[in-house]
């Protein structure tokens, strides 16, 4: 098993390990293939512009949502249990954007014997622009057993 972090070892205000990808059609097409998400705005520049994005086709929000999950799992390890994750898509994922998922711990608590951590999360582009701000709650393993 893989425990990267215990509840007792994290602090409010701590930034968790970032998770990053440069996104282009290779990433979007692979995601479309598994999610059956073949929507013209994600495949065709004409459709992207018709949808009022001047740069053309743009990435799927769902893929950014997956990236946020990846960040939480890679940071905390396989024993983490993500209880809640949400985000809003505030900016478009343009082709060749370098997306970086970030998270900051905002609270720690024990509830129903679970050692919970609340975080703010976001997916930022290469210019530091927030594209998918949100919140997460995860249950971490405890050194005292959970």
């Amino acid at each position, binding site marked *: *098993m*893989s425990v990267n972090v215990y509840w007792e070892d994290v602090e409010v205000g701590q930034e968790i390990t970032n998770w990053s*990808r440069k996104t282009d059609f*290779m*990433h979007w097409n*692979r*995601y479309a*293939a*598994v*999610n*059956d*998400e073949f*929507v*013209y*705005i994600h495949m*065709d520049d*004409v*459709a992207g512009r*018709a*949808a*009022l994005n001047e740069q053309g086709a743009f990435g*799927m*929000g*769902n*893929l950014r*949502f*997956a*990236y946020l*999950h*990846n960040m939480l*799992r*890679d940071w905390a390890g*396989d*024993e983490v*249990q*993500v*209880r*809640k*994750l*949400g*985000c*809003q*898509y505030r900016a478009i994922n343009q082709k060749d954007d370098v997306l970086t998922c970030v998270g900051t711990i905002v609270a720690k608590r024990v509830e129903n014997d679970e050692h919970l951590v609340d975080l703010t999360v976001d997916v930022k582009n290469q210019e530091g622009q927030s594209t*998918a701000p*949100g*919140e997460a709650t995860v249950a971490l393993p405890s050194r005292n057993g959970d």
Partner: protein
Amino acid sequence: MTTESETLVTQDLIERKGKFSEPKVAPPIALSDIRKWAIAVYWPDEPPPMYWDEDYAKTTRHGSIIAPLDFNPFAWPVHREPVPAARASADGAGIGTRGMNGGQTEEYFEPMRAGDVISTTTGLTEWVERTTRLGPTLFTTTETRWTNQNCELVKVRKSIGIRY
């Protein structure tokens, strides 16, 4: 605010508010579905062994391979719902027919595993209409409840759809 003549709130929307659909059932989840999903969302890196190595997964609290939480067992249906015009062509369409994913919040309970048969029921719960840089814009909130073959709750998704 949009004027009455510009409203994107249709009679169909009003009639659907608060009503949940009949359960929709996905095909059984296959190990290969989980592996491919993990490869796609971790591309170009190798995905974690939790999603493809049964021997490793047995050493974790989960006891077997589990699906990534964002995994969608409803992908690739044989029978398909009609696609809205704006999604069916590359040309787009007029006001109110264009759409985007506004975001979602998901609460997780039981994990999804190979062999699970997931059912969902979905309902439109609320909407907000306002004028944005895209013009008259409608934000709808839809709630979807996922359960497995044992009637255990898997997740509750609240998703925001954007029409403009």
